[in-house]
């Protein structure tokens, strides 16, 4: 590869020529200056070749100088900081950066996969839909090959060491784009006192106007645009109500003017103790889109060769970074703007061997200015071929109105600057429903001001100004952005002549060499093929050819593609329409989207007041909802099964204690609270006496059991509802849903006080003795009977004591303010020493309740089970006119006696039946599936009974006591006998003592 140093001797408004930095590209050291992008520095070091295309692996250089770049993608950084698919044109060069080319093997210069390019005649759009269908050849052979060769950059393999931050902002006006239009709009709204944010995606203010003025000498209020921008920034910086941000990309506009923006904080200082990026969720009164416009390439043979660039990009590289893609640049254009590129190139001492203007008689002031400098201007001429493969070596000249087969001349050159006109950057406008209108004169889609995206008030939430509104000329641009627009001097321009294919009569051979989507290798011929085959909707053509589906999302290709589709279908461009603009404008990192919520704080870990003590005891944890709860407390080298057995027996034989703080606790209060609870619960709660507790069931509207728990009436108008640990938030929301949407006029208030109380269950025959040792409250059978509660200074604590049991033993649950939880726990441990009190975990809790035949929400229920299935008919009030689920229970299938119902199950040999086992029934159903007749819902080893016990739902189970049925699990069969689900103390003698 020829390496020519093309950094110009002077100029470069964005680089600090006094300072040198170095980065690596494919192992080579590349000199650069602060302010360079990777692309500008690589060009400056003579590296035009910067990437390979996706499908045919064609050699590619940058075609653009900004966010629209499809070709020049690299992988930055190594190991854990490796980031693939970065555009060199928007990646800031920094000292020590390591960049590697991608999608090539073995190297960028020699890429063996470029064989695909040779085979491209056999690989047109959609070829893969038409072959690879024999046998399993797709999954076994062809797909693996395609998968390996597809993709662009390498896949990261390590966790990201960097941190990310998220922030919120609210503003009256958010202005997207820091060019002259955006700054003018900022002045307009800032001076009026509005809270204004201005977001600029690059590190620099000023946009196109400052570059273009280098060519055409335009002035704003008599100042060069650069000076005007400086003055505007000075004024804006002095306004306290205006916030200016560079390196901040407005990525997406969502409903109600919710703008997502990504700020680069420390991308160029890896390892710095800063968040790498900051994701902003911004809410605006109005979003002003001043995002400028994107230049369109022209479709001519060989337009993808490294060195063929947008005319504006060539201009940018010369003016901003003092680099040039070549020393001799041929310009191909259909408009006057490209002549600005000629002017800055000439000023920089670069030769312009010819300007090929697709128009017949270009004669505007800019054209004249170039002509005056002796440049050869060839109206009506075009390019028949670009010579050279990894670098432009010249072009073959032809007439635009021709088949492109007659070469008039070879013009040696090392770069081609092309301009097919401009398209307003309407992405944000369109993200949330703003509509576009085709401007025939200017040949672009511009925002239709009559069909803006609407905010919550039904009014426009976005507005486009400047080039983004289609006001390409500097005077119109500023006039659109501010009411008292400054005086602008800028040369007149002649109209563009829309040209979508050149040479105009090119045959299929040449159309197959005209690239539309550079990255995805979609050519003019592919779009025409799609049209021919009936993929005529713009979305079909896109999806069939992959046009616009590359990482630039069609910024360069979409308008050209749909114009060619329109031509192929012989319909006007507006009839074809555009594909949908989707967020984000350019890709944004997953790390920033996730923000701080990673690792330990991915989701909040809820800990009880006694959490540290459990940890010290070596508890094995189990996540339950967002809480963690001790599953069991194994001793050193003790298996979990042994620990669970020990904990169960402690409760059965003496006393155990459980941290029950995670149980949901919802206060329901108000004059209508009783009436409300009567609707929420299947039981009657309004008649519960103050001081009493009742076990309650909640059903969904469809009648399915959704939660259970003990309800205590605290006072005349206050109830405390216990829920399951995992259900607390959902049940609270469920209550509020009904209160706010259906019974909004009922006087009821709810509060989720789960975290306000620590709660300890003390269970076992010696439970009362432990409480009595603490003293202060009479907890005798008479004073505190089963299913009642009392409050008092138990052991000096501010305690509420519930006499309830989920184990079948004598049980109390003691609630104290969370701040006293650990102290209470310690006192109970101390007081229980005499009775060898043991903490027990969730698994012992499960075993205890299963021995007793109590159901567990989530085990015996799964959203398809109704209380009747579980033998809980007693909890369904018959006195109430209505409750949630009552009507559903009358549906025929619900009321049918012919359902799967709860039973106990025990294996014949005493072993534990595998949980989740299913019992087949004879025969098959109409779909050839085995019939079934039941399933295991819970299965444990019972330390108390010294054998396996299980609960399950069995077809007509309660009527089949003693019957033996076979269960299948993991391919094995187990015979089980149907028994009562209450394995322990069926008469309840242990409970009420």
């Amino acid at each position, binding site marked *: 590869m020829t390496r020519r140093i093309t950094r110009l001797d002077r100029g470069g408004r964005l680089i600090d020529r006094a300072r040198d930095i170095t980065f690596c590209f494919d192992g080579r050291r590349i000199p650069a200056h602060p302010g360079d992008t990777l692309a500008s520095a690589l060009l400056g070091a003579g590296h035009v070749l910067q990437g390979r295309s996706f499908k045919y692996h064609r050699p590619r250089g940058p075609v653009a100088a900004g966010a629209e770049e499809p070709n020049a993608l690299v992988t930055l950084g190594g190991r854990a900081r490796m980031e693939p698919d970065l555009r060199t044109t928007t990646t800031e060069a920094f000292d020590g950066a390591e960049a590697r080319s991608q999608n090539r093997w073995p190297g960028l210069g020699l890429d063996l996969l470029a064989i695909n390019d040779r085979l491209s005649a056999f690989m047109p759009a959609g070829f893969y839909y038409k072959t690879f269908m024999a046998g399993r050849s797709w999954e076994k052979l062809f797909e693996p090959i395609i998968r390996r060769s597809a993709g662009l950059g390498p896949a990261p393999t390590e966790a990201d060491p960097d941190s990310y931050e998220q922030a919120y902002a609210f503003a009256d006006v958010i202005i997207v784009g820091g060019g002259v239009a955006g700054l003018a709009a900022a002045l307009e709204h800032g001076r009026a006192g509005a809270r204004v944010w201005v977001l600029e995606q690059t590190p620099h203010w000023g946009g196109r106007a400052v570059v273009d003025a280098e060519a055409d000498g335009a002035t704003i209020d008599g100042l060069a645009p650069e000076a005007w921008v400086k003055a505007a920034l000075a004024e804006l910086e002095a306004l306290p109500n205006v916030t200016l941000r560079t390196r901040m990309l407005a990525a997406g506009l969502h409903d109600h003017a919710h703008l997502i923006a990504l700020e680069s904080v420390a991308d160029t200082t890896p390892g710095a103790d800063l968040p790498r990026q900051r994701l902003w969720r911004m809410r605006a009164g109005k979003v002003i889109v001043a995002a400028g416009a994107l230049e369109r390439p022209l479709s001519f043979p060989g337009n993808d060769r490294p060195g063929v660039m947008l005319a504006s990009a060539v201009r940018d590289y010369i003016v901003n970074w003092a680099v040039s893609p070549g020393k001799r640049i041929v310009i191909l254009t259909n408009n006057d703007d490209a002549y600005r590129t000629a002017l800055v190139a000439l000023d920089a001492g670069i030769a312009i061997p010819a300007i090929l203007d697709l128009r017949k008689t270009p004669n505007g002031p800019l054209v004249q200015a170039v002509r005056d400098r002796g440049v050869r201007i060839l109206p009506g001429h075009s390019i028949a071929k670009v010579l050279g493969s990894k670098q432009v070596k010249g072009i073959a000249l032809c007439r635009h109105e021709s088949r492109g087969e007659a070469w008039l001349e070879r013009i040696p050159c090392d770069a081609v600057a092309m301009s097919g006109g401009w398209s307003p950057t309407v992405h944000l406008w369109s993200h949330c429903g703003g509509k576009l209108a085709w401007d025939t004169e200017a040949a672009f889609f511009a925002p239709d001001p009559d069909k803006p995206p609407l905010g919550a008030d039904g009014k426009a939430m976005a507005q486009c100004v400047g080039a983004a509104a289609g006001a390409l000329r500097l005077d119109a641009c500023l006039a659109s952005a501010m009411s008292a627009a400054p005086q602008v001097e800028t040369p007149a321009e002649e109209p563009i002549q829309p040209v979508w294919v050149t040479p105009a009569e090119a045959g299929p051979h040449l159309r197959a060499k005209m690239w539309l989507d550079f990255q995805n290798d979609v050519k003019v011929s592919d779009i025409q093929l799609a049209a021919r085959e009936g993929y005529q909707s713009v979305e079909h053509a896109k999806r069939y050819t992959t046009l616009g589906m590359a990482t630039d999302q069609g910024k360069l290709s979409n308008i050209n593609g749909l114009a060619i589709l329109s031509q192929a279908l012989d319909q006007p461009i507006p009839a074809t329409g555009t594909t949908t603009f989707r967020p984000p404008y350019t890709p944004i*990192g997953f790390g920033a*989207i996730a923000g701080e*919520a*990673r690792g330990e704080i991915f989701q909040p870990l809820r800990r009880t007041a006694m959490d540290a003590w459990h940890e010290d005891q070596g508890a094995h944890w189990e996540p339950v909802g967002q809480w963690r709860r001790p599953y069991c407390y194994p001793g050193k080298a003790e298996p979990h099964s042994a620990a669970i057995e020990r904990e169960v027996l402690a409760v059965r034989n003496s006393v155990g204690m459980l941290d029950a703080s995670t149980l949901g606790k919802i206060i329901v209060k108000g004059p209508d609270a009783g009436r409300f609870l009567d609707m929420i619960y299947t039981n009657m709660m309004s008649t519960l006496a103050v001081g009493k507790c009742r076990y309650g069931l909640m059903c969904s509207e469809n009648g399915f059991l959704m939660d259970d728990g003990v309800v205590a009436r605290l006072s005349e108008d206050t109830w405390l509802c216990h829920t399951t640990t995992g259900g607390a938030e959902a049940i609270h929301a469920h209550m509020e849903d009904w209160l706010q949407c259906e019974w909004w006029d009922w006087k009821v208030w709810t509060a989720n006080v789960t975290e306000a109380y620590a709660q300890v269950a003390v269970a076992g025959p010696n439970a009362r003795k432990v409480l009595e040792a603490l003293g202060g409250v009479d907890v005798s059978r008479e004073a505190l009977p089963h299913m009642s509660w009392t409050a008092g200074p138990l052991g000096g604590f501010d305690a509420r004591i519930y006499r309830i049991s989920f184990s079948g033993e004598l049980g109390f649950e003691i609630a104290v303010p969370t701040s006293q939880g650990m102290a209470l726990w310690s006192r109970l441990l101390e007081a229980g020493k005499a009775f060898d009190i043991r903490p027990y975990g969730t698994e012992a809790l499960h075993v205890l309740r299963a021995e007793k035949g109590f159901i567990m929400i989530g085990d015996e229920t*799964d959203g398809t089970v109704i209380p009747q299935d579980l033998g809980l008919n007693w909890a369904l009030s018959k006195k109430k006119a209505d409750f949630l689920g009552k009507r559903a229970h009358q549906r025929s*299938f619900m009321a049918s006696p012919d359902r799967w119902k709860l039973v106990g199950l025990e294996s014949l040999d005493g072993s534990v039946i595998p949980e989740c086992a299913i019992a087949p029934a004879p025969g098959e159903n109409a779909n050839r599936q085995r019939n079934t007749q039941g399933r295991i819902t819970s299965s444990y080893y019972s330390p108390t009974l010294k054998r396996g016990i299980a609960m399950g739902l069995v077809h007509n189970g309660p009527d089949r006591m003693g019957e033996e049925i076979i269960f299948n699990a993991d391919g094995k069969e187990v015979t089980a006998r149907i028994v009562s689900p209450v394995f322990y103390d069926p008469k309840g003698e242990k409970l009420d003592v």
Partner: protein
Amino acid sequence: MRRYSVFAIAREAMRYHEGWERAWPAPTPKPRYDVIVVGAGGHGLATAYYLGKNFGITNVAVIEKGWLGGGNTGRNTTIIRSNYLQDPSSAIYEKARSLYEGLSRDLNYNVMFSPRGLLMLAQTEHEVRGYKRTVNANDLQGIETRWIGPQEVKDLVPMINLHGPRYPVLGALLQERGGTARHDAVAWGYARGCAAMGMHILQNCEVTAIRSENGQVSEVETTRGTIGCKKLAIVVAGHSSVMAEKAGFRLPVESMALQALVSEPIKPMIDVVVMANTVHGYLSQSDKGELVIGGGTDGFVNYSQRGSWQHVEETIRALIETFPPISRLRMLRQWGGIVDMTGDRSPILSKTPVGNIFINCGWGTGGFKAIPGSGWAMAELVANGEPGPLAADFGLERFREGRFIDESVAAGVAH
């Protein structure tokens, strides 16, 4: 229909591919058809295809208000699986999955069915039990799934973090013949197959009214004129309630947007499809190299097909937690599709209160994987006027009878 093959490509390569014929024509509507299918998405086209193929009914029009395959068929995350818990669900999804196995050859259109394995991660004890139950159920249903431990999960997905500080991976439900297919190709392949049988696919043809006489459907009014029919099949997913209203009945369906997104393409990173329901996100990698990511539904009823923000954050967090190396990849594109959710999150394939109008809807967040089975069962329903065994349990009457088919039981969410 001229057949596609490697030879056809070679032949066309010699003449710059100028000789390919249309995949489906653009006919003028006839005044009357035996059957009109409203909705040229995957389900509608498959319904028409199997009406022709299985029942010889070819005087059929599939009418579409936009472009065919433009609804959820072109917006989903392309996952195919049949590891459902309830018998009726697993029957129809397995029918679909098994048809996908041979679909490319059947249609002579490569839909790129790629059974590269599908995992549903269990990250709580509750999920472990749910998936073990599913494995046992699948065994009796004749569906090959199995429970695998954490190490086997790691072998299949080397980048997974088994020991997430919040939700460790305890194992997974694996369906080895689950995977993905190319979603657009499914619609295009069926459309081409329908056209080859002489059926009419009428795009840009919106139904504005449905008329009936004596309780029997008679004709539809469309933006391309009035078209008569003997039978009408409504297969329009997100807009089912809208279409039902035109026919004069109501549906127990709510429509909302389901969110999805893709990353930029990268070299192979994950070979299988992984669904993580506790943290709520699912992930696969397309043949093009993009990570295809699905999230949740917006929590409000609407018809906007836009990408919203809140779920993107939740989903990406969940996936970075599970697959830490994806943190430095970037979101390329996000979008939404309107899913039609029933009360039990299972579909409706049913007769309706209007004679000879049949409805197929309610696939919610899981429709793509069902397309062939859904079309097969719907064709049977339309042709015979009564559901066959695959559709029998999915009738509208189940909501009245309380005979729900609830899949959220095992999966936590239904996808």
